[in-house]
């Protein structure tokens, strides 16, 4: 990866798009739940959570557990915030509120969408949605605040510190 291109917002988005298929593969818990990033705009990210047996939270109605939606929306929101910044920074979730409109349907993929709608120097604000097919079929909405971490030396990126 060309580290310098991370500092240019447009190049960074382009790089994120290029690596879309790998963005969740390098995150173990995202690989475990199996969601993928499907589209990237500056400050706006879409993803898809496929239905899977091992994510079921209720053995009777066979619906995916809410925690899987937490994982999807938390991760997409963090990415949306990071993509909205003019410089490359790590972000960390401060808080995340999730409201459930209705349970997900069994055997159906869940679409996730996250939008960073405001930035300050130290905090990014994000809202997110989980739905089937279109936003008309809402499963959950989320709202979160993310801390924008102070710059670390670029050489420490991925150094396993």
């Amino acid at each position, binding site marked *: 990866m060309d580290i310098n291109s991370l500092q240019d917002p447009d190049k960074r988005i382009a790089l994120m798009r290029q690596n879309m298929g790998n963005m969740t593969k390098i995150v*173990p818990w*995202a690989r475990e739940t199996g969601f993928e990033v499907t589209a990237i705009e500056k400050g706006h990210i879409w993803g898809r959570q496929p239905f899977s047996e091992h994510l079921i939270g209720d053995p009777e109605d066979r619906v995916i*557990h*809410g925690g899987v939606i937490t994982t999807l929306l938390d991760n997409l929101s963090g990415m949306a915030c990071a993509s909205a910044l003019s410089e490359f920074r790590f972000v960390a979730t401060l808080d995340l509120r999730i409201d459930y409109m209705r349970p997900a349907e069994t055997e159906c993929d869940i679409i996730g969408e996250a939008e960073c709608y405001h930035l300050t120097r130290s905090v990014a604000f994000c809202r997110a949605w989980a739905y089937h097919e279109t936003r008309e079929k809402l499963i959950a909405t989320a709202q979160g605040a993310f801390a924008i971490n102070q710059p670390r030396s670029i050489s420490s990126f*991925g150094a396993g510190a």
Partner: protein
Amino acid sequence: MTRNEMLQDLLVRVPIVQTLGMRCDVKGDDMTAILPFNNKLIGNFSLKALHGGAIGTFLELTAMAQLFLESDVEKLPRTINITVDYLRRGRAENLFARAYIVKMGRRMSSVRVEAWQAERSKAVAAMQGHFLLSRPELESQ
């Protein structure tokens, strides 16, 4: 069957509980939920930090288990909403949680959960949530 036996019986049948690898230890009236560390729970490799989604899932399930334990419902409650505060980085260690039922209503309840690692006084995350209890006698009304 005690409520604890019923809870343990239910938890082994819930796939997400098994995927996460969590368990609930009940001693007397107290329940402590335990999430043994596993590499699959990591969210950021360079920081060796637990994924916020894994922590959130664990807290939500802890609240549901506590409600199941303290009520007479036959199913795990349904989540209305949750707010998770991420207070410290979750390290590559076991995570523990305790849930406090703030209010147990007939249909709805309010629960607070706190999670910690090495030191109980240093919370890693806290959750406040509202849950819907599935009581068959109320459904039919």
